[in-house]
């Protein structure tokens, strides 16, 4: 296994230590040690916007801590949802008197741990709402949408909710706009190279030297279609088509695009794919209001990328355009 790590047992602790040392202007560590918070959190009079999840997805989740983004994050082990205590502490530390919005991906580990933590916090009088992102169109048919995984679309929700909370909106408004964001957000990814699990040194999935798989989850969960490696244009066309059909997106729509590399796929390739995506959306008379191209939600060194489209209304345009000052996402 070619990774620069020390003892596996200390992996998460050392990463968190390094992260806090590097970003002490924006981030602080809470007593439970695996919960990180924006230095100014809790912000009185603002709804706390938080998340949490397994590690190995950097810059997600902790890279989105900051002004106009996330207030706290509960950090799990590699690909493992954080336990209840951390989730609970993350909720408590984000509450500035107006309650807390938990924005997580649709994984039973995350929903159960945050669900139990939310109950504890609610028992103490903190209003908590949980939004569950299910943007991965590959992970269940449309009639079982509530079973779909949350993937890079989570970043879009954090951006929107961080901005809306910053505007001073209340928890009910956040929940309403958040659900609208989730409903309007669809993603699909492709991977050709697994990540290596640092615990075992083994690849997260098996795949042939000339193969790729559409719909692989960002923990290496199997996707929907295994094929020979396609060209940039072919793969972008295939992914975009499946996303467009799913909402469906149509002529006249305005969207945001988030193209996130999974780890080892280069920005060079992503821009080649973006070129095709732009052509396809233009052909469909869909306007790209804003784009994000880079690594936003990775799977360590996995090879591949995902495309996330969000259909925007006036609210969502305002929110995606709002400035933010996160550790790994800064917007003027």
């Amino acid at each position, binding site marked *: 296994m070619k990774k620069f790590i020390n003892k596996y047992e200390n992996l998460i602790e050392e990463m968190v230590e390094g992260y806090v040392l590097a970003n002490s202007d924006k981030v602080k560590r809470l007593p439970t040690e695996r919960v990180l918070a924006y230095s100014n959190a809790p912000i009185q009079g603002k709804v706390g916007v938080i998340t949490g999840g*397994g590690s190995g997805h950097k810059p997600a989740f902790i890279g989105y801590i900051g002004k106009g983004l996330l207030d706290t994050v509960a950090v*799990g*082990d*590699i*690909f*493992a*949802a*954080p*336990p*209840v*205590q*951390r989730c609970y502490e993350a909720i408590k530390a984000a509450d500035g008197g107006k309650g807390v919005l938990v924005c997580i991906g649709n*994984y*039973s*580990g995350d929903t*159960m*741990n945050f*669900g*139990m933590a939310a109950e504890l916090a609610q028992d103490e009088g903190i209003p908590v709402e949980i939004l569950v992102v299910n943007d991965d169109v*590959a*992970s*269940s048919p449309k009639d079982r949408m509530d*079973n*779909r*995984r949350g993937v890079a679309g989570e970043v879009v929700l954090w951006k929107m909710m961080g901005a809306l909370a910053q505007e001073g909106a209340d928890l009910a408004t956040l929940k309403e706009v958040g659900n609208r964001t989730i409903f309007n957000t669809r993603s699909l990814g492709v991977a050709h190279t697994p990540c290596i*699990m640092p*615990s*075992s040194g*083994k690849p*997260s*999935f*098996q795949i042939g030297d000339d193969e790729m798989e559409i719909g692989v*989850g960002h*923990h*290496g*969960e*199997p996707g929907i279609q295994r094929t020979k490696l396609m060209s940039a244009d072919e793969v972008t066309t295939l992914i975009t088509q499946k996303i467009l059909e799913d909402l469906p997106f149509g002529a006249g729509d305005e969207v945001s695009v988030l193209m996130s590399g999974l780890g080892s796929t280069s920005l060079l390739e992503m821009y080649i794919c973006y070129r095709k995506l732009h052509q396809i959306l233009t052909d469909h008379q869909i306007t790209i209001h804003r784009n994000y191209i880079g690594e936003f939600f990775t799977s360590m060194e996995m090879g591949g990328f995902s495309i996330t489209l969000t259909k925007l209304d006036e609210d969502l345009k305002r929110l995606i355009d709002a400035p933010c000052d996160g550790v790994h996402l800064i917007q003027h």
Partner: protein
Amino acid sequence: MADTISFNRVKESFASILNRLEENRQYLNDLDSPIGDSDHGESVTAAFKKVKEAVDAYPADQNDIGSLLQSIGKAIIFSGGAAMGPLYGTAFMDAGTAICGKSVLTREDLVALMVAFARGIERRGKVKIGEKTMFDTIYPTAEALQKAFDEGKPLSDMINAGIAAAKQGMESTKDMLSLRGRSSRLGERSIGHIDPGAASSYFIMEAFLKSLVEG
């Protein structure tokens, strides 16, 4: 062999569970690879290390099996994480509640413990039998204990029946279509693989039940 189970026997079973899980850590990761995220062995061994710590920290002057199981449950819930954390944690909590205050378990108590354990999984996971989860190992185990008890079998027979049912339950997940957790997104492609949670449950059930009767 006595037909009751002492506090110490229960307490010591957790060393044996941890051992069994550690032996199978990579095997459980590997089961989690084709239909999940390759980490189940890590999560479950890490959680049962925490369990071991909770057991070791249990006050030396107390011997309430119920409260021991509850503190184990709390440890898993609070610091286990992953999907298995809330599931196993709730199961131990509920099992502890079911036998609250007992320092010795009768055959009947063991049935109550296991049934509550299974109901805990069911409650937390909103899961039914046949959905390809750990519940498919655990529920049949509880059922087998119940049945053996109802038939008036001695403890050792009950335990053998429980272990056999756990094994069969685990193996039954191989042909199932997953409807819960990560693997539920695979549809037909989930078929043909043993569920990793069902396998870890088998190791836990087996090590636990065996320790209750072995020295």
